[in-house]
């Protein structure tokens, strides 16, 4: 039976119409996460990924995802920093990220250097030629958009 909206309905009909209206609107609802939330999820997931549950993240053998400098909520682009593997006796690497104008600036505070920094959009492949950082400080253009950018520092 074709119902005309606004006419008197049975309670069942009213509920069915309301459900249909909500379902239709939900179908057109294109809610998305903010890029900062997306970046935070990926960063925290990479960090919290339980190796007992599954294969560890595929990275180069001496590398694992860093815990520092990845919550780049100040950035419009989501980025993840991949830090050197830390052995039991090594000092933890402190990575500080900040946005200055259209640049993202990283400071590596581990008292060592120089460092080699590579950039990639694929955490499993860092093929680009590394940039040598002498003073523990490097910068890059802060890109916007949903693409994740990974940095590897050694």
């Amino acid at each position, binding site marked *: 039976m074709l119902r005309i*909206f*606004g006419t008197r309905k049975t*309670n*069942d009909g*009213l*509920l069915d*119409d*309301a*459900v249909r*209206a*909500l*379902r*239709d*609107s*939900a179908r*057109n*609802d*294109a*809610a*998305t*996460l*903010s890029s900062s*939330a*997306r970046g*935070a*999820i*990926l960063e*925290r*997931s*990479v960090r*919290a*990924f*339980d190796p*007992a*549950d*599954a*294969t*560890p*993240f*595929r*990275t180069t053998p001496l590398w694992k995802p860093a815990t520092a400098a990845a919550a780049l909520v100040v950035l419009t682009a989501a980025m*993840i920093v991949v830090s050197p593997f830390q052995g039991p006796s090594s000092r933890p690497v402190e990575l500080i990220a900040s946005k200055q104008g259209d640049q993202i600036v990283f400071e590596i505070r581990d008292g060592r250097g120089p460092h080699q920094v590579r950039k990639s959009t*694929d*955490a*499993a492949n860092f093929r680009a030629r590394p940039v040598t950082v002498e003073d523990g400080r490097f910068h890059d253009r802060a890109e916007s958009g*949903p693409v*994740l950018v*990974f940095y590897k520092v050694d």
Partner: protein
Amino acid sequence: MSPPEDRETEDDRLVGAAQDGDVRAFEALLLRHEGMVLRLVRFLGVPAPDREDVAQEVFIRVFRHLGRVDRSRPFSGWLYRVTVNAVQDYRARAARRGAEEAPWSEAVEVLAQAPGGDPEEHAGQAALRRRLETALARLSERERAVFVLREIEGLETPEVAWALGVSSITVRRHLGRARDRLRSLLRDERKDPRH
């Protein structure tokens, strides 16, 4: 939109890649499902300011325990389950804080409107949605979850049962109660001259 079976196949491929440690596959899964998770979090009554936090919690749980995914079942079913659990935990935390749940109809912004059509009908549809939203907020947590998954998300009864960790009989019972209660609430609202 691709057929459900194609989506499931692609989800399964991405889950497999993510289980092997492919971060890009994680990202692709996130992008494919964030809309559904946000929508469900919303329909389950999480106020707007907290929805993104709850959605973050959902995906972190998903990715943390991805190795446990039963790949004989659709990934989306597991995601529904994790989302419902995360909302329940959120509600428990909110209750401990003594926070009041925001009335859904007030917390919800204007829902997306299909393009075109009669503006008067759109207004009528929007009013009808708001009435249902208000009524849904008055259901029990379990009744609301069953109703939203079955009637709004369109899951089959066994899928709802699996997502909620209950039997199909329980789903049907809660769905019946939810429908009765919603009918009653919509009827009462119609009698109320303020509406």
